[in-house]
């Protein structure tokens, strides 16, 4: 599985990428939406894990632009939103995608990653 991580917190994405790599997942990371768009023009990913609040181009907007470039790519959103209400609002914004609140347990993330990829396999 090839995964793209996008978050403006470099230490967060670089460490998460390393942890995914230890689990046999090929993860690349960038810290801006612009860099994500440039990378996706030349490389293919199965899944993108996006922070919702990325400066300049938000995670939600980035997803819309990435979908044009790679229609088959799947998405998981990460957010710093704290409350249950915020979570619901965010989930609604993210459409049918998966949504996790920071800080995320790696086991929960892996579970969601499998779930989203399985959904792809089902053709949903």
């Amino acid at each position: 599985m090839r995964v793209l991580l996008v978050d403006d917190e470099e230490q967060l994405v670089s460490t998460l990428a390393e942890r995914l790599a230890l689990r046999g997942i090929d993860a690349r990371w960038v810290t801006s939406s612009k860099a994500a768009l440039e990378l996706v023009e030349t490389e293919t990913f199965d899944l993108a894990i996006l922070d919702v609040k990325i400066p300049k181009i938000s995670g939600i907007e980035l997803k819309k632009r990435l979908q044009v470039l790679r229609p088959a790519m799947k998405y998981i959103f990460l957010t710093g939103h704290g409350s249950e209400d915020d979570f619901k609002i965010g989930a609604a914004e993210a459409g049918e995608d998966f949504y996790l609140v920071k800080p995320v347990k790696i086991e929960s993330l892996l579970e969601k990653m499998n779930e989203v990829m399985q959904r792809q396999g089902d053709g949903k």
Partner: protein
Amino acid sequence: MSAYQESIGECGLHCFGSISASVSHELKNALAIINENAGLLEDLSFMAEKGLPLEPARLKSLAANIAKQIQRADGIIRNMNRFAHSADEAVKCIDLGDTLALTVALSSRLAAMKSITLDFKPPPQPMCVTTRLFYLENLIWLCLKEIFERAGVEKEICLSLRPQPQGAAVIFSPVDAPVTDAGAIDLLGYLKAYQTADSQRRELLITLPVDLTVCPS
């Protein structure tokens, strides 16, 4: 309570909510980094148990990352605590340099989201005014929020202070027009302050009286 006082109270609550949300978001990011670094330490320990070599330099680096984020989170909480306590305070003499430095720190996430660099130049000498600290912080926050929204290509906003014959001015630059936010306009009146836009110098001045309690309305 008059409708005007009610409007000021609502404005204060709105700003308090917005600032708290922004701060909590930043705090979540610090916690998320600590979480990943601690998780990686756990992963490496697990691998070491299985016989893979563990590099001391790698461990030191991860521990340093955690310590850095704890310091960051502590700074965020200290700033939020100062801001929260300002809501308890009545009219008092305040150091404007300290107040601006705090508001700039609280606005850092808001600025980052717009890719704006926010710079504060502290005055060489302390500048003090007697005012309502909480509402002054709210006013500066609302001004910054509007200025960020219309910043366009100019991505560096500078804040400074200048003594005025009747008090002191908080200066935002480069800014071409006065703020129009209804809450900010109400707060200007409440703090007996006024705004002027200097189009030649591209500055917005918020002039505060030396002492709110003796300033005529």
